[in-house]
């Protein structure tokens, strides 16, 4: 079925249209969320939030951009919100533990293993994902959209609402920063 017909039907709260949209886009939504939040459970949670948001705010989608662009924006916003919320909770739990109010042990989750990575790259990909988390927000998003989602510079600039040259610059800086962090870690481990 045509995308625009589906969107029109979804605006009328058609269940079949919603199901078709979910089944078409669930992989893209989940994969992007997973690369950002780096936890299967959290990615599932974020993906559900994204589709609830789509269902509730489809009326605000005027068709000025592609549906996929609009969807990517929701995924990125929800994923970053999720990370911020998690960090806030962790900080709060740490403060509580200082005052002896919370005796739960705070632990760092184990290194994230993306299920789609080739078997012989698992170890290095885990290091890369860990290092990606050290990047500033915009660089992290641009890098994931390019490397994991395989989007072109043009598509990334539409999603991030910026110019192609800024995307190029973001990716260049992201790679340089990743190299710096990796160099630092490798020298220490030598």
């Amino acid at each position: 079925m045509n995308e625009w017909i589906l969107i029109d039907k979804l605006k009328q709260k058609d269940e079949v249209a919603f199901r078709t949209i979910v089944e078409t886009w669930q992989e893209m939504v989940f994969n992007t969320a997973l690369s950002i939040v780096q936890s299967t459970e959290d990615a599932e949670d974020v993906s559900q939030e994204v589709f609830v948001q789509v269902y509730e705010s489809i009326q605000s989608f005027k068709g000025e951009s592609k549906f996929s662009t609009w969807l990517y924006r929701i995924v990125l916003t929800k994923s970053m919100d999720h990370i911020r919320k998690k960090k806030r909770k962790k900080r709060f739990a740490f403060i509580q533990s200082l005052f002896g109010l919370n005796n739960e042990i705070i632990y760092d989750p184990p290194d994230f293993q993306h299920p789609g990575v080739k078997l012989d790259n698992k170890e290095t990909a885990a290091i890369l994902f860990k290092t990606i988390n050290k990047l500033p927000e915009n660089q992290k998003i641009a890098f994931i959209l390019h490397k994991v989602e395989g989007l072109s510079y043009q598509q990334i600039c539409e999603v991030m609402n910026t110019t192609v040259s800024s995307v190029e610059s973001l990716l260049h800086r992201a790679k340089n920063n990743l190299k710096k962090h990796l160099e630092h870690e490798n020298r220490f481990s030598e």
Partner: protein
Amino acid sequence: MFNEHKINNRIEKILNSLDGMQKAQPAPFFYTRLQARLSGSRKNIWEQITYFVSRPVVAFSMLALVMLLNMTVLLRKSPTTTTAVVSDQTYQSVYEDFSIASNAFYDYEIKEP
């Protein structure tokens, strides 16, 4: 020199480790779980009102508004006149309420304040 070369190779390998990766799939029956969440998120009108009022922005704005109204009411009243009137009225009302006046039949001199 050899070490430097080794490190650079390793970094390149790490940076290229996402090449040719497959897309991750959500667990089966994603739509069923989504439907359950969607029906759970449809709140009734009172839940929606409570949710709206309990949002920090709304709660603090309402608190600020109440404080502003209080301040406006307090500042509008002239402090000197108010005190005088209130003290006079208070005195009068206490006087009447508790019958401080000695109006007993055997009291010759009625002393009023």
